[in-house]
């Protein structure tokens, strides 16, 4: 006792400069997240009202909006943007609810979880290519069944990909968004006290599905509401997936917007800016509509609970829900497989089920260039995810030491870069960076990636960090460790597994970024994603396949490391492996 007293006194009196800085990390993080969004939105608003000095003949006013409304495809483009966004989000959520309600707590549910997690890292563009190569009338499925089963010697003239109703786009989005919502739901379940509630509800005679919907779902949904909103905003404004799978006569508003941004007729940039603002407004309106749907669903749910109705016994549907998971994730796995086949294919004519010849020519041809692009991609993603996790750990530690808890309003700010459509603020950001005379530099690209990476890293790591048993911290202090030592020598090593997973999530998010890299990098900074989408306009499937696979591998590898490293490092500490 006598020896510990002076030590405590010394600790209390010592002002640690590092710790003082820590207090400002949450503020710094918010600035990093919000600054670019706000600057970008203003940079977009100015040209929408004709304030664009380099344009000859664009007077200030509403000319951009007039031209936008006069575009003959306007109403259809708006309609497809809104419907594909809302329908794909609703379907993804419905699939997640169905699987979770039917299977939560069972071994099958853990299998689904393991099956879906790697899909999260598959970049959207690669998944879309795979799906397109799979379901087109001349795609792999048709090739396998032709001509012996279908009788087709030539591919049928069926409109499957790029259909005006956007069904192919919806399918592509659902396949990619279901794993995301599923993992968010699984994370939320751990805090929903699901197991005990289920025991009580089932004890009262409710069937598994009804019990889950009535007792667990409301608590889960409160936590996945923002991720659902992110999915809606993303699906309504996505550019790369919609370019590959979406309608073309006319395209969705976001795809058309990028075309206007890039049109040689410079006056169309005011139209693009006006479309960006309309796009922003549409997202807000769709979210408001969704919110009303939430309230209606809540009222119905309450009435159901009050009525005491035990609900229909739908146990026979359980296998069907597994099928849903299997189809949506199987499409991506098969898509990746067909990409792999194309990457080594010689001539591969319809209706051959497999390529006529196999060669590594495509890989050899693109190898050297591919390698340098992989290095750039890894450098950007590595830097962005490391910066992000430092900020996130700083925020979480500050939250605990100074009680700077993230309120629900703070959480909204965290999600802001994901909720404001990229297309609404990145063009403006490009202009703002030019005005600030910032040349396209890898640092700027990393900076913009951090904006999109931080929210995901925060979501991925926050719960694990907060769930850490603080008694370890107390024990560390009792042994004489200051707060910094407790963080570095006890807490973070114990949280190695979730920290690495968060890094891997951040890495995958960065690898998948298309518009930020394209617009902020000024075309000089290329990553696997910008290369793959640029090649998409070309259409040599072998080249697309090589780049899409390289992109997928780059995003997936860190996940493998995140799984493997803790097992290696903590081979003799089972409790620290988090498996």
């Amino acid at each position: 006792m006598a020896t510990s007293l002076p030590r405590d006194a010394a600790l209390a009196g010592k002002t640690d400069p590092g710790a003082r800085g820590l207090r400002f990390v949450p503020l710094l993080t918010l600035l990093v997240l919000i600054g670019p969004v706000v600057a970008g939105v203003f940079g977009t608003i100015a040209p929408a009202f004709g304030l664009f000095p380099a344009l000859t003949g664009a007077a200030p006013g509403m000319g951009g909006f007039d031209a936008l409304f006069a575009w003959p495809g306007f109403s259809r483009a708006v309609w497809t943007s809104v419907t594909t966004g809302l329908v794909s989000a609703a379907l993804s959520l419905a699939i997640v609810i169905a699987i979770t309600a039917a299977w939560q707590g069972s071994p099958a549910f853990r299998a689904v979880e393991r099956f879906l997690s790697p899909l999260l890292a598959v970049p959207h563009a690669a998944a879309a290519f795979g799906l397109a190569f799979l379901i087109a009338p001349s795609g792999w499925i048709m090739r396998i069944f032709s001509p012996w089963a279908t009788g087709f010697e030539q591919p049928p003239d069926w409109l499957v990909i790029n259909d005006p109703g956007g069904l192919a786009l919806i399918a592509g989005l659902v396949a990619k968004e279901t794993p995301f919502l599923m993992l968010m739901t699984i994370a939320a379940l751990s805090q929903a006290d699901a197991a005990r509630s289920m025991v009580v509800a089932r004890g009262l005679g409710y069937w598994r599905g009804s019990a889950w919907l009535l007792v667990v779902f409301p608590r889960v949904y409160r936590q996945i509401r923002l991720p659902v909103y992110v999915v809606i905003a993303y699906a309504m404004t996505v550019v790369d997936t919609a370019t590959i799978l979406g309608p073309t006569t006319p395209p969705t508003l976001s795809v058309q917007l990028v075309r206007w941004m890039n049109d040689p007729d410079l006056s169309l940039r005011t139209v693009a800016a006006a479309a960006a603002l309309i796009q922003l407004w549409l997202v807000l309106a769709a979210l408001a509509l969704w919110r009303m749907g939430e309230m209606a669903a809540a009222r119905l749910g309450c009435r159901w609970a009050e009525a005491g109705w035990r609900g229909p016994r739908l146990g026979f549907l359980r296998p069907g829900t597994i099928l849903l998971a299997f189809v949506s994730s199987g499409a991506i796995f098969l898509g990746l497989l067909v990409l792999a086949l194309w990457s080594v294919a010689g001539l591969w004519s319809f209706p051959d089920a497999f390529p006529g010849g196999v060669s590594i020519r495509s890989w050899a041809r693109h190898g050297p260039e591919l390698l340098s692009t992989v290095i750039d991609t890894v450098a950007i993603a590595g830097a962005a995810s490391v910066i992000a996790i430092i900020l996130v750990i700083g925020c979480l530690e500050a939250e605990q030491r100074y009680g700077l808890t993230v309120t629900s309003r703070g959480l909204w700010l965290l999600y802001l870069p994901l909720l404001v459509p990229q297309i609404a603020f990145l063009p403006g950001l490009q202009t703002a960076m030019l005005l600030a005379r910032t040349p396209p530099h890898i640092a700027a690209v990393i900076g913009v990636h951090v904006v999109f990476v931080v929210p995901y890293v925060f979501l991925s790591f926050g719960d694990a960090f907060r769930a850490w048993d603080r008694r370890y911290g107390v024990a560390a202090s009792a042994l004489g460790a200051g707060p910094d030592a407790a963080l570095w020598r006890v807490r973070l090593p114990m949280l190695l597994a979730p920290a690495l997973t968060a890094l891997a999530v951040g890495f995958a998010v960065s690898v998948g970024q298309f518009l930020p890299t394209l617009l902020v990098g000024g075309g000089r900074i290329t990553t696997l994603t910008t290369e793959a989408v640029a090649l998409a306009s070309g259409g040599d499937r072998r080249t697309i396949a090589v780049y899409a696979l390289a992109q997928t591998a780059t995003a997936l590898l860190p996940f493998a490391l995140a799984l493997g490293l803790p097992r290696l490092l903590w081979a003799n500490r089972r409790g620290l492996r988090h498996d």
Partner: protein
Amino acid sequence: MLARITATLTLALLPFSASAETDPADWDAVQSAAEGQTVFWHAWGGSTTTNDFIAWVGSRVSEDYGVTLKHVKLSDTAEAVSRVVAEKSAGVTEGGAVDMIWINGENFASMKESDLLFGPFAEALPNWSLVDLSKPVTVDFTVPTDGLESPWAAAQVVFMYDSADVPEPPQSMAELLAWAEANPGRVTLPQPPDFLGATFLKQALYGVVDDPSVLLAPVSEADYRAVTTPLWDYMDALTPALWRGGRAYPQSGPRQIQLLADDEIDIAISFSPGEASTAIANFELPDTIRTFVLDSGTIGNASFVAIPFNANAKEGAMVVANFLLSPEAQARALDPEVLGYGTVLDLEKLSPEERASFESTDLGIATLSPDELGPALAEPHPTWMVEVEKDWTERFGVAE
């Protein structure tokens, strides 16, 4: 070696001290200023063969002139134009991101009109003396180039067809319509405003218009509605017989080639007589593909490179533009195993050895000889393309 490194380092630092522009006429000064520069060439990156060719150009100019060439791959040339516009609006008048653009037609007309180009420089390039001036190298879609862009490849419209499915290819736009009606869903066009799709419309316009000479003047000088009515009648008849009934279109020329390879269509327009042979050599098309032209002739034009007014490495870009006009680069581009692009050089002006490398090139199984190709029709004035694209989009681009 050490001296060379020191020299390179010194030169690399030079741009900071001397921002004065080099006169294109003083070629020695251009070459010495170019050494050590990095040229960012913004060029469409959708084709593996062109990308490989540009990489080869990069290795050659690095060897001979110490110029580092970086290919910025665009999915649409207009991306580079918007970049330069954004820089101008932000007052970036030097040290811009774009050093050179692969350009022609509408993009060139738009940049020229907005004073976004450096030059004139093209006619000061040493290899300009080898250029065949009877080819469309001084007018780009009827707009005079005024030395603001330098040609590097000649192109002419051909149609690719699968000889296994089409024994007798059509010889005119009217015959193409009749064939499409007999074989619905087996032909398409890249969706305008893709330049190749727009070219299809212009080719169709040439096929139905009474007096083609009106197309060479700006559209404002003609009775647009009267001239184009037969075109829209033609497209109204053709569209229901197109692939997917005209409810979806391939988004680019290469995507259209993929449809040909998948046997989804049998006839496809192309702007490069050697493209089919090159694709066959790369396993991208079956070896039953051949090409044909129309009896009344097909549209021809040239590809150019231009340098933005605020380019960071203007001298380096000029050196690359000049290298693209060298017999070595032009002969390599002609080879269907490499690129299959037509040359802009006048073979008469070359030395016998240089000429031999062109004449010995096997043009490939699907490529027509220069005689079979026939004379090229001039590109209509770019204003026609703008109006026709807009009109097409209103009539067919937003169809249910």
